[in-house]
């Protein structure tokens, strides 16, 4: 691998990290809804799936510690530091990812409340403690650096060396507990998890597979570091890992398949659905095939064979974690989950940053071999040629990274950040809002439909003549409205036919006399804007048209003239301004106008049944299937 390629790869990782940074700002400024594809029906997503993978890949830390310290297999000691660093970074990624995932991460300290029935409580404590153990285990390596040769620091390093064995045993216990508990997180989601991935033995499955994944992560890392630094692979040790991994992996496969078989779910794997194909691929390509490959000595001891098997095993276990927690979880009842762009950016930025940290440590510490590598870039200020360049290494790096950051951030920002929709029809007018609050019950007062993605429920216009059939939500629960009776009654009450009509037909379309309710109240549940700003603006002449309606430069509905000034045919209801920014939903409009009058009349005429729900919705329920067929034709 040459220098240019290395720089490009690093730049790529930095770019992913920068994109994640943009997403992180959006996440904390606007909340989870703006930054993720999570919903009430799908409250956990790709972040949780990735967290499970981080911890699985970090399984090498406690496995190697057990192998070297407990089983006294000293030959694998050269891999130990790398295993512990990978584990430290894996768990750090877990914690960082958690900070994004939690709705109120600053309440994390509440974990001090004892909750022995909660798996997550146990995992939280194990992860916090194990991360501490890992940092303590890794710090002697850091303290070897020439810059940190202070006597006090050396004393600390010495103490930490003395503490190794208790730390290792604590680490193994904690890992055993939380690696398996991550599986038991999903035990209580029996109604959600796909039966092919669900198992009462999930704790054991997670534990055995984490050991396999941790070992194979070390193998793959060895190959990558060989390409990157041209040293430090120790192929003979990796072969050893390849020789032993069939033990935990085989156990995992046997446990998984036998549980499915015993509970009688296994036939489901053959039904040909995409889940079953994924399951079979996971088991055979990601499990059985590498198991066979590693069983053959010749394959195991060839570079290609070992690498292929390791990658397959990792893919199989990552697939198990992701399928369980994400892919197959939300298939029921037509719920869909797809991570949003910013969610994906954060999910990817965390491992990218972890890899950069890994490279930093590998470049500056005795990680791959015994010696600390020499710094690659020596600044030569005395050299006249260097004066010409005038760039100190720090400046050059900053100039490169910041140049990269500008384009990544500038691209990521518009792609991920959607400013709150600019709703023309937001009920900002205090008079309108107060009016609306008087008419509408609070449960039904909501923001206009143009501001959200909720599915619209268009209104079917009322049918009939003397008796109108109102079939609002298209569900055939109809209300029969005696139009003529109301007309006659109101004319008598108010003294004139015109006043009677205007009571209900309070606002008519230009040139119309009795516009139907459904013409403006077009959605059954959501308020709709009845004013089209664009049409008015275009017809009145673009930029020069503002002052024709707005009295000041303030571009607000409040400063505009009322519709009647131009549309003289419009008749507002008594006490209502003709310019409403939104029409209430059909349901609210109907209930609002009917109920107000019915309640009034019930009191006046002393007929309480007039105001009861059952008067219009008879028999306790609306009447289904009452169509216009039964009604007299005009």
């Amino acid at each position: 691998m040459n220098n240019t390629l290395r720089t490009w790869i690093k730049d790529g990782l930095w770019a992913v990290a920068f994109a994640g940074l943009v997403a992180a700002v959006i996440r904390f400024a606007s909340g989870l809804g703006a930054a993720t594809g999570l919903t009430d029906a799908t409250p956990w997503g790709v972040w949780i799936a990735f967290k499970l993978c981080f911890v699985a890949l970090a399984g090498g830390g406690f496995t190697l510690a057990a192998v070297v310290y407990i089983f006294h297999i000293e030959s694998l000691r050269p891999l130990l530091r790398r295993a512990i660093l990978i584990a430290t970074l894996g768990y750090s990624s877990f914690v960082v990812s958690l900070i994004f995932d939690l709705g109120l991460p600053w309440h994390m300290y509440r974990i001090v409340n004892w909750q022995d029935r909660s798996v997550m409580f146990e995992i939280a404590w194990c992860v916090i403690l194990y991360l501490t153990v890992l940092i303590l285990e890794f710090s002697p390596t850091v303290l070897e650096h020439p810059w940190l040769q202070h006597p006090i620091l050396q004393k600390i390093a010495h103490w930490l060396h003395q503490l190794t064995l208790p730390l290792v045993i604590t680490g193994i216990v904690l890992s055993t507990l939380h690696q398996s508990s991550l599986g038991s997180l999903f035990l209580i989601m029996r109604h959600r998890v796909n039966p092919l991935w669900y198992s009462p033995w999930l704790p054991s499955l997670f534990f055995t597979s984490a050991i396999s994944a941790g070992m194979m992560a070390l193998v793959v890392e060895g190959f990558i570091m060989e390409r990157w630094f041209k040293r430090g692979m120790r192929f003979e040790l990796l072969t050893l890992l390849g020789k032993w991994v069939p033990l935990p992996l085989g156990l995992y496969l046997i446990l998984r398949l036998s549980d499915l078989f015993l509970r009688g779910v296994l036939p489901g794997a053959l039904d040909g659905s995409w889940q079953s194909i994924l399951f079979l691929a996971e088991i055979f390509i990601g499990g059985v095939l590498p198991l066979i490959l590693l069983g053959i000595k010749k394959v195991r001891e060839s570079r290609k064979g070992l690498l292929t098997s390791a990658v397959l095993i990792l893919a199989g276990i990552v697939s198990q974690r992701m399928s369980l927690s994400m892919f197959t979880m939300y298939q029921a009842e037509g719920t869909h989950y797809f991570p949003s762009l910013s969610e994906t950016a954060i999910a990817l930025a965390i491992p990218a940053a972890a890899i950069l940290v890994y490279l930093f440590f590998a470049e500056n510490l005795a990680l791959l071999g015994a010696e600390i590598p020499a710094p690659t870039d020596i600044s030569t200020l005395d050299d006249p040629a260097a004066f010409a360049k005038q760039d100190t290494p720090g400046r050059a790096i900053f100039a490169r990274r910041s140049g990269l950051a500008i384009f990544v951030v500038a691209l990521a920002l518009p792609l991920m950040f959607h400013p709150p929709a600019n709703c023309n029809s937001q009920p900002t007018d205090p008079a309108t809002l107060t009016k609306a609050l008087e008419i509408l019950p609070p449960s039904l007062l909501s923001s206009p439909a143009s501001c959200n993605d909720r599915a619209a429920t268009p209104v079917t216009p009322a049918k009939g003549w003397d008796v109108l059939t109102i079939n609002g939500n298209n569900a055939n629960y109809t209300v029969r409205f005696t139009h003529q009776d109301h007309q006659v009654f109101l004319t008598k009450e108010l003294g004139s036919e015109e006043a009677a009509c205007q009571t209900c037909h309070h606002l008519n379309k230009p040139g119309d006399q009795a516009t139907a309710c459904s013409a403006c109240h077009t959605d059954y549940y959501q308020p709709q804007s009845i004013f089209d700003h664009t049409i008015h603006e275009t017809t009145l002449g673009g930029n020069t048209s503002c002052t024709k309606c707005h009295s000041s430069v303030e571009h607000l509905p409040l400063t505009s003239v009322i519709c009647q000034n131009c549309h003289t045919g419009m008749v507002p209801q008594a006490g209502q301004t003709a310019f409403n920014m939104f029409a209430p939903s059909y349901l609210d409009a109907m209930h609002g106008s009917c109920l107000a009058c019915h309640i009034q009349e019930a009191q006046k005429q002393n007929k309480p049944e007039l105001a009861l729900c059952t008067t219009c919705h008879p028999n306790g329920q609306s009447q289904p299937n009452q169509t216009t067929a039964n009604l007299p034709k005009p």
Partner: protein
Amino acid sequence: MPTWLTLAKGPAFLFVLAVFALGLLRLIVLTVWDILAAVHRAGNRRMPYRQILRQTLSWLLPVNHLHRARPAYSFASFGLHVSILLVGLFLRNHLDILQANIGFAWWSISKPILDVLTLIGIAGAAFLLLSRIYVMSSQRLSRTSDYLLLLLLLNILVSGYLAGRDWNPIPYDELMLFHVLNGMALLLVAPFSKIAHCVLFPFIRLGAEVAWHLTPRGGSEVIQTLHGPQGRKI
């Protein structure tokens, strides 16, 4: 919404805005970094900071420095700068676009004043462009990009002025699309062209002053830097 408004309130404009803001920020950081490095290397570390500050401030208000030999040029330049800054940053319509993109804006200046300023700006830009073309001393110093940037400015000012007129002969939506596209181009090239002086201006005096305090052999090293090790000595 017409195309131009969709464009101006949409993601493309936010991209341009982010490149503009972050790119200029990066230039400031790099400039300060370089000046500090130069101060660090200079033999004489005693800088007349007070004098530098005074000069910078006095250059910000160029009444003191109007070029006596070329008063017309100076007036045109000053007028153009004031016009761009005030109209660009305080026109209600511009602030609405900003509001739609980043969620906040500030107070605006009333339109009639800005109309007059736009006219001054158009006159200034036109004068500068013509003098670059016809005055030999300017012509020799000019690069292609200098003409193009002035042309870009002129496009923006003229189309913006016309769009607010009742007698505007060009179809409104097409004119505004032209205006928005030119504006976006200007913002996009700002951190990579001489337009960057809009934020680097305060550092020019400082940089010039620091340059005089370089090491004794500094001059020849500058020449070497410019012409290579075999460069001519002064």
